[in-house]
């Protein structure tokens, strides 16, 4: 051979297989367990329920995947969702008098939620990129701020969508096409677009490059701050999208809305195989992670064998196991 690198003796013993298969195996295991425990587990209604309610965290987790891949973090998404939901309800209730409970108000509400999401993501992003403040601190701060704001908007209670509007809006959660409800459709579309963006666009590649080594990215003419900012804006927008699905479901927002969504979304992303330190991310993994989390809750509701007090413990154990399954395949130290 012409080259001087004779790489012969080591047959590249990397097993990406298990690393890739890990989350999927965990998901399959959960499905098998669920089906064994309750015959209704695989029923259409149950599957649809789980998918639809996973959509909120799922849509957010897709955005979170980009943020984490770029080496960042966002703790504010749960509070942000609560705040946007509150805002959306206020806007719609406010416009009701002038516009009537029609499509107009709904479109206005959706628009308001998306714009608010964009703006909230942008604020996080600007504080982090241009002001150069640790993402953990910025988003911990905005987490407190949004949570307070929604409590304040609701005067300590609950903000409720006008009843008529609620009826008009419900199809957004409960309706759908071909028997598949909107949240599932939107989740699927967001996931597909996200996966495409991660693998097939410059944006996805830049996220990984920045998360891996932002100096290198900078030297390679990547506008690092802009890409980082974009990840937050994208995440904010997706929080807005999730909220648009959420409001018709419950028709209200309060300080209890979206509590701990951030941890769930981050956990889903990591269970899915994205590296917390950045540099590598996969959207489909996050989707699998969200489904795993959703199924754990569902299965615990389907069976009686543990005290409900211990649900959190079971959940914790399964999350760790799911990740062990995935890590098994990893090579040496």
């Amino acid at each position, binding site marked *: 051979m012409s080259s001087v690198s004779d790489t012969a003796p080591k047959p590249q013993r990397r097993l990406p297989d298990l690393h890739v298969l890990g989350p999927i195996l965990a998901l399959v295991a959960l499905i098998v367990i669920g089906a064994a425990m309750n015959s209704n587990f695989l029923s259409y209604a149950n599957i649809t*329920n789980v998918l639809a309610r996973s959509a909120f965290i799922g849509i957010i987790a897709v955005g979170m995947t980009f943020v984490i891949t770029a080496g960042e973090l966002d703790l504010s998404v749960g509070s942000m969702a609560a705040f946007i939901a509150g805002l959306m309800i206020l806007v719609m209730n406010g416009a009701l008098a002038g516009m009537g409970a029609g499509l107009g108000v709904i479109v206005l509400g959706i628009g308001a939620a998306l714009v608010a999401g964009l703006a909230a993501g942008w604020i996080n992003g600007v504080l982090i990129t241009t002001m150069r403040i640790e993402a953990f601190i910025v988003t911990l701060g905005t987490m407190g701020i949004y949570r307070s704001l929604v409590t304040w908007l609701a005067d*300590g209670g*609950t903000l*409720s969508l006008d009843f008529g509007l609620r009826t008009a809006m419900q199809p957004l959660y409960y309706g759908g096409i071909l028997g598949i409800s909107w949240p599932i459709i939107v989740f699927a579309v967001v996931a597909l677009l996200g996966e495409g963006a991660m693998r097939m666009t410059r944006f996805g590649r830049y996220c990984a490059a920045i998360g891996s080594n932002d100096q290198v990215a900078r030297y390679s003419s990547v506008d690092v701050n802009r890409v980082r900012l974009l990840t937050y804006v994208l995440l904010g927008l997706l929080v807005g999208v999730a909220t648009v699905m959420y409001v018709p*479901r*419950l028709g*209200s927002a309060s300080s209890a*809305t*979206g509590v701990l969504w951030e941890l769930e979304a981050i956990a889903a992303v990591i269970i899915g195989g994205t590296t917390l330190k950045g540099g590598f991310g996969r959207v489909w993994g996050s989707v699998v992670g969200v489904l795993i989390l959703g199924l754990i809750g569902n299965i615990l509701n389907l069976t009686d064998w543990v005290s*409900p007090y211990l649900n959190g413990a079971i959940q914790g154990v399964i999350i760790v196991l799911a990740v062990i399954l995935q890590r098994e395949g990893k090579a040496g130290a």
Partner: protein
Amino acid sequence: QEDETQVIGVSIPAATHGWAGGMNFHAQETIDRLEETYPQLDFVLATASDPAKQVSDIEDMVAARGIDALVVLPFESEPLTGPVASIAEQGIWITVVDRGLSEEGIEDLYVAGDNPGFGRVSGEFVAEQLPEGGDIVVLRGIPTAIDNERVEGFETAIEGKGINVIGMEHGNWNRDDSFTVMQDFLSRHPQIDAVWASDDDMAVGVLAAIEAAGRDDVQFVLGGAGMKEMIDLVRQGDEMIPADVTYPPAMISTAIELTAVGLVSGAPVSGEFTIGSVLVTQENADQYYYPDSPF
């Protein structure tokens, strides 16, 4: 699904503070008892940490467990109204506990607590104890509609009685938080005549703070909900805890029991049961003292 077994779903908020903990305990205990008494009944208990989770729990109960009746203590009224209404339409028996749904006529049975009443009784007692008027501080619960109703009831009751609320903060129905808040109130106000802690867990924190500060200007602390340790203090005539206002977590037991009996007997009890908030003083404290309850 089988004709002979009937399933009752019970959906309640998780035990994130003392009262909810007591309520969780009573729910669990009642279910265990009823399952033994009525082998033909099956119970599903789910505890939720937020309204969305509670809606999911209820969905699961319907889709996968085929419940015939639902006993629900809504985390919040608004978000649960729609989902519960849609279940009611499927012909499932609905028992609502404590917090009413925001739309009338959905539930078959309503076992209600009386939050404005709770505030009113508390306010009246405070006003009565301070006939000359006085300066009090108020600790509020977790910001929720319930808390708002209680505080409104309280404020209405003390109106025009010369009582100044000189500080009001959220103690979140939590002993630690109320301890902190009370310490700071004590630093800030040299003279506090009384404290409405609005909850017995918070009263525990408040008492500890007062004791540690060695202040003797505070004449009494009024908690609420009927925690056994507090009732016991009332019974013994403690000066700081002259009274308590009930808001029994055991109302969940009543609701589950009525629902179960209704299902089994085929003659369901419907309607509304309001469990009023009662002032407990040394005279009647024995009636409200349950030493075996965890709360």
